[in-house]
């Protein structure tokens, strides 16, 4: 029996959207307020969905304590209360919700061994969100 388990986490971080490939004027036109050189912040909601057969001995797709520990160590502690533009991951990548979503999917997909990562969903604010399933179509 295959099930999909989704866990929601929160972290707060700041960022600035700015591309070196664009002129100052173009950056302002494309990114608007998000181009403010001092940066600004969000309370990000991160939803991680794992998929797989339900283990008969535990009744679980994966142990939530393992997922929580992995996310806490590899994501919340590394990204929470940071300026995303200062992190190695975003030296050449603009920290949009799309890129953040792909980055976090990559960390989970590479590092979390106990279950398959089905998708990552990020809410930057309650009005916009992004989903990434490693390039696959989303399960609806």
């Amino acid at each position, binding site marked *: *029996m*295959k*099930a*999909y*388990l*989704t*866990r*929601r*986490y929160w972290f707060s971080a700041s960022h600035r959207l700015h591309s070196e490939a664009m002129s100052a004027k173009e950056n302002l036109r494309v990114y608007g307020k998000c181009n403010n050189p001092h940066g600004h912040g969000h309370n990000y909601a991160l939803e991680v969905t794992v998929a797989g057969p*339900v283990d008969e*001995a*535990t*009744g*679980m*797709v994966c*142990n*939530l*304590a393992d997922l929580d520990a992995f996310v806490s160590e590899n994501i919340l502690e590394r990204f929470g209360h940071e300026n995303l533009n200062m992190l190695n991951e975003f030296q050449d990548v603009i920290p949009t919700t799309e890129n953040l979503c792909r980055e976090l999917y990559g960390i989970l997909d590479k590092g979390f061994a106990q279950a398959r990562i089905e998708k990552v969903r990020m809410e930057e604010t309650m009005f916009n969100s992004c989903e990434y399933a490693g390039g696959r179509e989303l*399960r609806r």
Partner: protein
Amino acid sequence: MVYLTRKAEFSASHYYHNPQFSAEENQRVFGKCNNPNGHGHNYTLEITVKGQVDERSGFVVDLKELKEIMNREVIELLDHRFLNKEVAEFKDLIPTTENLAISIWKRLQPRLSVAQLHRVRVYETEDLFVDYYGET
């Protein structure tokens, strides 16, 4: 194909325990959830059905009927119950959110005639939910 979702809520208690594990292993795997006296949640259930829109009624499914089926087959049996002790399938099955979603699917799927069951989503808390699509 049009998809329609109906929500319901129920509150229940449970604990996680596998009689084939030692006491230490149960504690290691299930942690706080292994407390044999149980603990409870306010569960939210989302049932999504799919089908064609009936031209005369404009409905995929009559919501009154869906609500009645959900109440009769699921909510009345689970609400304000100790799942391990009072719900038949959980005498031998650990009442995790995964198993709850699968069990609710099995209860509802044979009862739906007009529309087809698409997804059972069970929220144990706002930050934890399971989806089941009937996949084996």
